[in-house]
C-alpha cells in the first residue's frame, strides 16, 4: 500500500455509478432473443438428427407396413438377429476382459515405460476397414500369409487350407473384439485414474490384502466406468459393419447392418425393407441413450472443481509391459504387416517373394483418378465437417453446462446430441440417403450430403470433448470475466476460446481422424462419382485388386496417423483420453 492512492483515484469515494444508471435491460427481451436463437439452433440439429430416422420409419411402415412385412416376413431375419447378438455379446466379452486387463496393466507400467499407455488406443485410429483387410491377407483360409506359415508346422502340414478361417463367425467376433477393446480400455483407464491412491492405501493400511483391495475397493469404484464402457461397446458391437461385411458376406454370415446394406445395394433394391431391418438397432440405440440420460441425469451435477487426483503409485510390473506390447503387436502391427506385404507384392498369394517387392501398387493408386479423387474428397469432406461440427459442439457444450435457464431446450439438446452415439452409422447413412434424395434438399451424389452425415454422426463426440474441457475449466474464469464487464460473446472470445484452445484443437484432429476412416455411413450416401477412401477401397476389394486395396488401406492409415500426431501435438499427451 503506497502513497499513490490519491493519484490513482483522485476522486475516490465519490459516486462512480452514474455512467450506466440510465441503462436497463429487461429479462424478457434478453432471454427472448437468445431463446429464439437457441430454438433455431436446436431445430436445425433436430432436422439433421431426427428427420433421417423419421424418413426411415415412414418408408418402413408405408403401404401397410410393407417394409416390415418383407423384412420380417420370412424367418431368415431371426437368424440375422441372432448372429448380430452373438457378434455384439461375444465381442463385448472379449473387449471387457482385454480392455480391463490392459487398463490395469497400464496402471502398473514401470515409470520409464509410461509412454506405452497410449498403445492400446491405436486400434481406434487404424481405420477399421484397413485392419479388416489386413486380417484377410493374413488369415484367409488358403492364401493368408499366417495360415500359409502355420501350415509349415508339423501337425498342420497335411492341410490344404486353414487352420484359421477368418471368414467364420468366431473370427469375426474375435477381430471385432480386438477393435472394441480400445474403447473399453479408454473408459476403464480414465476410471482408474480417478481413483486416488489414498483410497487404495487406506484399504491396505486397514488390513486388506491386494486381492481384497481389488475386489472391495477398486472394482466397486470402477463400476460406473465399467458399466458405461460396456454400454458403449455393446452399441458399437451391435452396429459393427466393416468386419461382417468383408468377412461374412461370402460365407452367408449376415448381421442387421449388412442385411440392411444388401437391401439397398442388391437388386431388387428395397429401401422400405432396409429401413425395417435397421429398426431393432434404432430402437435399442434410442433405449440405451434415453436410459443412460435418465440414469445419469443432469450433466452439471458432475462438475467438480479443483483437486486433481494424483497419479497412483502402485507397484509396477514388467509383465504389464509385455501384455501391452503383445496386444499392440496382435491388434495393430499384424494387420498392418499383412497390408504392407500385399501392397509391396505384385499379387496376393500365400507365398512371399521379396525379390518382386515394388511400390507399383502405390503408383497405380496415384495413377487412378478415381482413387485420387476419393482421397481428396475424404480429406476435404472430413475437414469441412470438422470445422462445422466443432463450433456446434462448443455451443452445445455451453448450453448443456450453463444453459440452466433454458429448461426444455436444454433437455431436448441433451438427447439430440446423444442420439447419433446410439445409432449405427449405416442406419444414419440409409436415413440420409432417403432424406436427401428427395425434396426439399436434393443433395444425393454431392459432397454436401457426405459432410452433413459426417457432422451428424460426430455431434456426440464434439460435444462430449468440449464439455469435458469446459467442465475441467470450472465456472470461475467465466464469472470473473462477466463481473469484469465482458458480455457473453466477449467472454467466449477472450477467455473461453483461448483457454479451450488445446481441447478444441485436439477435438478437431481426433474427429478428423474418425471421419477420414469413416466407412458405414459413407458407403450408403456415396454415389459412383462421389467416393471416399473407405468406399473406393471396398470397391477395389470387391473387384479383387488386392495390392491396390492394400495400398489404399495403408494410405488411409497414414492419413489417420498424421491426424493423431497433430492431435497429440495440439491437444497434449492425453488428447486420446478425451474420446
Amino acid at each position: 500500500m503506497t502513497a499513490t492512492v490519491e493519484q490513482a483515484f483522485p476522486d475516490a469515494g465519490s459516486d462512480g455509478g452514474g455512467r450506466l444508471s440510465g441503462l436497463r435491460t429487461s429479462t424478457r427481451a434478453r432471454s427472448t432473443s437468445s431463446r429464439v436463437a437457441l430454438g433455431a439452433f436446436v431445430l436445425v440439429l433436430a432436422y439433421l438428427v431426427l428427420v433421417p430416422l423419421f424418413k426411415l420409419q415412414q418408408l418402413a411402415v408405408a403401404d401397410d407396413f410393407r417394409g416390415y412385412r418383407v423384412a420380417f416376413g420370412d424367418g431368415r431375419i431371426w437368424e440375422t438377429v441372432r448372429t448380430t447378438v452373438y457378434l455384439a455379446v461375444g465381442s463385448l466379452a472379449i473387449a471387457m476382459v482385454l480392455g480391463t486387463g490392459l487398463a490395469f496393466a497400464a496402471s502398473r507400467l514401470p515409470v520409464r515405460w509410461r509412454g506405452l499407455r497410449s498403445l492400446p488406443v491405436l486400434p481406434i485410429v487404424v481405420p477399421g476397414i484397413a485392419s479388416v483387410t489386413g486380417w484377410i491377407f493374413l488369415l484367409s483360409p488358403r492364401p493368408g500369409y499366417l495360415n500359409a506359415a502355420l501350415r509349415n508346422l508339423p501337425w498342420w502340414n497335411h492341410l490344404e487350407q486353414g487352420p484359421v478361417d477368418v471368414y467364420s463367425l468366431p473370427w469375426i467376433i474375435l477381430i471385432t473384439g480386438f477393435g472394441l477393446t480400445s474403447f473399453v480400455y479408454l473408459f476403464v483407464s480414465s476410471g482408474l485414474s480417478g481413483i486416488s491412491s489414498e483410497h487404495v492405501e487406506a484399504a491396505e493400511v486397514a488390513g486388506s490384502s491386494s486381492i481384497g483391495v481389488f475386489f472391495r475397493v477398486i472394482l466397486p469404484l470402477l463400476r460406473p466406468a465399467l458399466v458405461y464402457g460396456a454400454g458403449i461397446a455393446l452399441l458399437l458391437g451391435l452396429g459393427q459393419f466393416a468386419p461382417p461385411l468383408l468377412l461374412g458376406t461370402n460365407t452367408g454370415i449376415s448381421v442387421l447392418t449388412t442385411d440392411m446394406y444388401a437391401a439397398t445395394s442388391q437388386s431388387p433394391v428395397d429401401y422400405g425393407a432396409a429401413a425395417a431391418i435397421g429398426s431393432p438397432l434404432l430402437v435399442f440405440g434410442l433405449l440405451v441413450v434415453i436410459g443412460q440420460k435418465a440414469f445419469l441425469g443432469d450433466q452439471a451435477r458432475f462438475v467438480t472443481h479443483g483437486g486433481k487426483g494424483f497419479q497412483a503409485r502402485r507397484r509396477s510390473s514388467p509383465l504389464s509391459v509385455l501384455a501391452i506390447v503383445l496386444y499392440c503387436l496382435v491388434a495393430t502391427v499384424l494387420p498392418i504387416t499383412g497390408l504392407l506385404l500385399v501392397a509391396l507384392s505384385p499379387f496376393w498369394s500365400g507365398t512371399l517373394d521379396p525379390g518382386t517387392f515394388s511400390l507399383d501398387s502405390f503408383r497405380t493408386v496415384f495413377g487412378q483418378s478415381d482413387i485420387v479423387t476419393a482421397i481428396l474428397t475424404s480429406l476435404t469432406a472430413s475437414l469441412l465437417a470438422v470445422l462445422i461440427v466443432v463450433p456446434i459442439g462448443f455451443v452445445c457444450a455451453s448450453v448443456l453446462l450453463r444453459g440452466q435457464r433454458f429448461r426444455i431446450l436444454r433437455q431436448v439438446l441433451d438427447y439430440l446430441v446423444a442420439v447419433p452415439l446410439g445409432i449405427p452409422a449405416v442406419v444414419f447413412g440409409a436415413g440420409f440417403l432417403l432424406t436427401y434424395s428427395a425434396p426439399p434438399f436434393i443433395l444425393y451424389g454431392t459432397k454436401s450430403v457426405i459432410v452433413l452425415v459426417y457432422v451428424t454422426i460426430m455431434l456426440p463426440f464434439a460435444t462430449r470433448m468440449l464439455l469435458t474441457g469446459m467442465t475441467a475449466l470450472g465456472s470461475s474464469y467465466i464469472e470473473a470475466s462477466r463481473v469484469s464487464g465482458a458480455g457473453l460473446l466477449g467472454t467466449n472470445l477472450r477467455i473461453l476460446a483461448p483457454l479451450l484452445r488445446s481441447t478444441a484443437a485436439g477435438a478437431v484432429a481426433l474427429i478428423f481422424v474418425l471421419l477420414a476412416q469413416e466407412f458405414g455411413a459413407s458407403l450408403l450416401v456415396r454415389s459412383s462419382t462421389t467416393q471416399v477412401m473407405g468406399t473406393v477401397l471396398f470397391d477395389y476389394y470387391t473387384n479383387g485388386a488386392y495390392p491396390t486395396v492394400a495400398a489404399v488401406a495403408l494410405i488411409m492409415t497414414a492419413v489417420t496417423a498424421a491426424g493423431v500426431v497433430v492431435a497429440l501435438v495440439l491437444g497434449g499427451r492425453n488428447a486420446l483420453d478425451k474420446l
Partner: protein
Amino acid sequence: MSHIRVTGLGKTFPGKPPVTVVKDLDLEVEQGEFLVLLGPSGCGKTTTLRCLAGLESPTEGSITFANRTVFDAARRVDVPPNKRNIGMVFQSYALWPHMTVRRNIGYPLKVRGRKQELSEGWVEKTAALVDCGALLDRYPGQLSGGQQQRVALARGLVARPDLVLFDEPLSNLDARLRDSVRAELHELHRRLRYTAVFVTHDQSEALALGDRLAIMNAGRIEQYDTPQRVFEQPRTEYVAAFIGMANRLPVERGHEGWTCAGAPLVGLPGDGTIDGDRGALRLRSDDLLVLRPNEPAPAGATVLRGSVADAEYGGRHMDVVVVVAGQRLHARVPCGGSDGWARQLVANDAVQVAFMTSDARFYEGSGTAPAVGADPVTPQPVQA
C-alpha cells in the same frame, strides 16, 4: 438514500425437493460502506453475493444500485453481470492463466472500452497500490498465493466499480498471510472508500473489516449491525453462539428466584421484567472464572460446582472443560506465573466456576429477544 438496496430477496434452486437458500432478505449498504455477510457454510451468504453480482438470478425481490434497478422479479428486470458496473474477488482468485498480470488487471477497463483510463495508467497505478507493480509482465502461474490474491484485488478495483464483491477471498491463504492481507485490505478501504460486500465465515475477519455485519442463518439475516454491537449485544442466541459465546447455561425461575444448574443465579431480576420461566445464558469462555474448591468468589458472581473433564495448555492460558450438572463449559483461564495453579489442572479435579451475570447474555426459551444485556464495554480482541 442508500447506495445498494436489496428488498425481499429470495432464491430457490429447482430440484426435488426445491431448495430455498435465501428467504425474504432486506439489505441496505451505504456509499463507501464495507458490509460483511457472516455465517456458517450453507447459510446463503454466497448465494446472496452472487445475486448481487448477477451471476445468480433470484426468484423474488429487487436489487438497486445507486437508484438503478438491476434486478426486479416483479418487473422482470435482470441486468446481466457485465452491465452492473461491479468488481469481484473470487475465492479461487480466478486469474486467467493465459493472460499476464497486466492484461488481467486491465481486462475490466478494456472490455468496457475505457481507453482513456488505460492510457492514463490506471492499470499500473492500481497494481502499485496493491504492491504488484513489479509483477505486471508475469503470468498468474508464476505468482504465489498472496500475490495472486493482490492481483485479483487490483482487477476488482481497477475500473472503480459501484460495488466490489468479495467471495471468501482470504480463505485460500495460510494463517499468517491472511492476517497481513486482511490488514492491507482494511487500509485500502479506508483510503479509497469503495462500497464493498464481503462474504466470510470467519468472525475475526468480519469484525476487523466490516463497517457493518449481517449475520446470516438459513437464508435470513439474524442481525444487521456494527461489529461492536454484534459482538457485545448479539440479538439472538444463534448470533451469540456464532460470535463466540460458546457456553450455554439453561436457567429457570423457581420459588426463590432464578437458578442455574441448581445454584442460585445472582443478578437476574426475579420480578416481572422477564416473562417466561425458562431461558439460557450465553457466555464467552474468557468470562468464565475457574476457582479452587474453597476459593472465595468475587462479589456478585454466580458460583457453580463441577469437575474438570479436560485441560489443554495454550501458552498464556489453559483451555479447561468443566462439567457442571451435565453441561460442558469451556473456560479460558490465564496460566498466571510459572507456579500458577491452573497449570496443574487435570481431569476429575473438583473446581468451582464463577461468572458475572453482566458478562452473560440472557435469552428466553425461544432463543430470541434478549431482555438483559451486558454493559457496554470496550471491544475485546476475539480469538479466532
